[in-house]
């Protein structure tokens, strides 16, 4: 057990799996697979495994995603880390190949591949392309791919082990805003399942469902609400597909109030699916969504920070819903 960042925890899992499987490969572009944390050895996949297995490429994210998919089809496990700038270029390969080949071949093709998709940290100042948080929905609507978005270093490591061992292609979203988050994480391999949400706090007045970069503001708001005596059940989806509906449906059946929190655009954000699934199954509940407006993030910090959901927004909205 050592305190680790999201990235250290993830690379530790990758390193362990690559040591166990000499055929496994890793392709990167900008972000070298290097991480360090006090008290643990520096991880550098490139120097440890050599450039036959760990390679950087030119600015060609389509090739990166296609290449690891092809590696998977050839019988090798593989993973890639896609910088957020290039995600749009990877779409065809995920849509029509990674997600469909098992089905289209009647189960003959297997793509044991992990696509780490960096999402921006929604840092102010960088405008529409570099501060957005928007492709979660596009991935989650696709079929045949598991899409996960761990929000803690512990989950990130365990889900990376599970993802690399899974015979299914996994889109592993890394919200870069969690870069600084540290927590105690076991040094040994362990798995966190790819199909379970986590109940982070229990309570009976309101259910707050969020994931990834929305968890921190949700938990902060929950703490303040609990301090005021409200019973708040905060659920971390962790998985966008296959979404674990039972956990939030059962919760809302109890609380009868559901607030979803997304950092992504309002229309068709994951919270819309959460509300829809709940509304199909629970009668008489009340619903509210928090999300980024349907507008690109502006560069100006003044504009951007006003638009980006924060803990105050969650707190106030939850209160209104309870009240």
């Amino acid at each position, binding site marked *: 057990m050592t305190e680790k960042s999201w990235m250290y925890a993830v690379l530790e899992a990758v390193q362990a799996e690559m040591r166990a499987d*000499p*055929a496994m*490969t890793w*392709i990167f572009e900008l972000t070298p697979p290097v991480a360090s944390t006090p008290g643990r050895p520096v991880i550098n996949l490139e120097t440890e495994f050599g450039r*036959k*297995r760990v*390679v950087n*490429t*030119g600015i*060609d994210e*389509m*090739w990166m995603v*296609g*290449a*690891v*998919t*092809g*590696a*998977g*089809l*050839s*019988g*090798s496990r*593989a993973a890639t880390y896609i910088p957020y700038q290039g995600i749009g270029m990877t779409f*065809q*390969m995920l849509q*029509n*190949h990674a997600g469909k*080949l*098992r*089905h*289209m*071949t*009647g*189960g*003959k*093709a*297997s793509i044991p591949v992990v696509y780490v998709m960096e999402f921006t940290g929604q840092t102010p100042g960088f405008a529409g392309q570099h501060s957005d948080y928007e492709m979660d929905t596009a991935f989650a609507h696709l*079929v*045949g791919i*598991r899409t996960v978005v761990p929000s803690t270093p512990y989950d990130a490591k365990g889900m990376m082990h599970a993802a690399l061992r*899974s*015979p*299914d292609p996994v889109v592993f979203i890394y919200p870069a805003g969690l870069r600084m988050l540290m927590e105690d994480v076991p040094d040994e391999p362990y798995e966190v399942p790819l199909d379970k949400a986590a109940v982070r706090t229990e309570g009976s007045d309101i259910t707050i469902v969020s994931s990834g970069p929305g968890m921190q503001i949700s938990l902060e708001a929950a703490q303040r609400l609990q301090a005021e005596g409200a019973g708040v059940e905060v659920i971390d989806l962790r998985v966008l597909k296959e979404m674990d509906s039972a956990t939030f449906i059962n919760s809302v059946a109890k609380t009868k109030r559901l607030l979803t929190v997304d950092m992504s655009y309002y229309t068709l954000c994951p919270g819309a699916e959460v509300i829809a699934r709940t509304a199909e199954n629970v009668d008489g509940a009340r619903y509210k969504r928090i999300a980024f407006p349907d507008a690109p993030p502006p560069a100006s910090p003044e504009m951007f920070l006003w638009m980006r959901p924060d803990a105050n927004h969650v707190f106030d909205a939850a209160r209104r819903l309870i009240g």
Partner: protein
Amino acid sequence: MGYERDDIGSDAGFRALNTTSRRGFLRIAGLAGVSLSLVSAAAQAEAEIGFWAKDLSNEKLVDMFRTILRIRWHERTMADKMLSDPDYRGYNHFCAGQEAVAAGCCAALRNSGPYDQIDLVFSTHRPTGHAIAKGVDMKLMCAENDFRATGLNGGYGAEMHLSDPSVGFVGADGMVGPGPVLATGAAFAIRARESDQVAVFFGGDGTYATPHFHSALNNARLLGLPFIYVLENNLYHQYAHYSFSCPHTDIAEAARAYGIPARVVDGQDVFQTYNAMHEAVDRARAGNGPSFIEAKTYRYYNHWGAPGATAGELGAFGYDPLAISSFRPEREVRAWMQRDPVNIARATLINWGVLDAGQAEALETEVRAEVDAAFAWAAEQPLCNPEDGLMHVYAEGRAIARQFG
């Protein structure tokens, strides 16, 4: 257009051919009085590649001829069923005319063995020739193409998604573009695991213009991958001549620009395609990186065909009404038919003393019986169970039915 529409394209013309033989194709073309020498001078020059097919055993040479015949008769039989069998449902992107590319190239590959040793082939929307040449079971393929539960892929994929890892046929792909990128990824994995496999992509002239062309070749070259790009230049991508999308006469020029060794070969001559592929495979296995082979070839039928086709309509085998910008002139079709891959292979083997005419005829009869049997077997296979469509989304479990609300 007369030829395609009136003869092959029409039921009558088609049956007439069918009741005679595969070489009915040529007879008709011959009637037009067009005549070309079997092997053109340009093609001869490129044939001077090492690893002469001449050194192969008689058995292997006959096998290559058999592969061509199997592909051709599969094509012909399927086309017949489309026009005549009301119960038949399979469609096809026909490859008749292009058989020697698949047959020659795959003959230079390792087609059996464990999955981490066998050579891997990535194909396109026009896969059946490659599949047969790579060793896919024809019965299973016929059943798959007719959407049968016991087909090669359980009826999930059909023609554009044929896949059989057991013979290294990674599979067809209905999308134009991604194939070579996937194949270079396989080649990267192969090298990483220190296998001597090669990853091969078969693609059409249409793949040149895709963004993937650059990605695949550039990365294959930079990383020195064991990757072979076989470009079947059949002059057209769906409704347009390749000159509409490519500034090169030889697309191989584009590959050479990356520093990738590239050959232009006569795609109608199975021994030339074999020679070029043998050289490329040796290069890849020796760790000397990728190769590119442009095979000039031609398809006899239209882009695509399906049951219920009517001559002259989209989906029939003849003239294509959507071919606005450019379409295939009748003379071009006839000229190419003069250089039929079946005839070239047969004539060469007879010339080399490997077969005599009678043996060739017997072989063809044998192949024809095999193909008939494959279609007959397929026609008796069970249809799919509707609810099984929810399977194979992930390795385990089933999707939930959502159509009922």
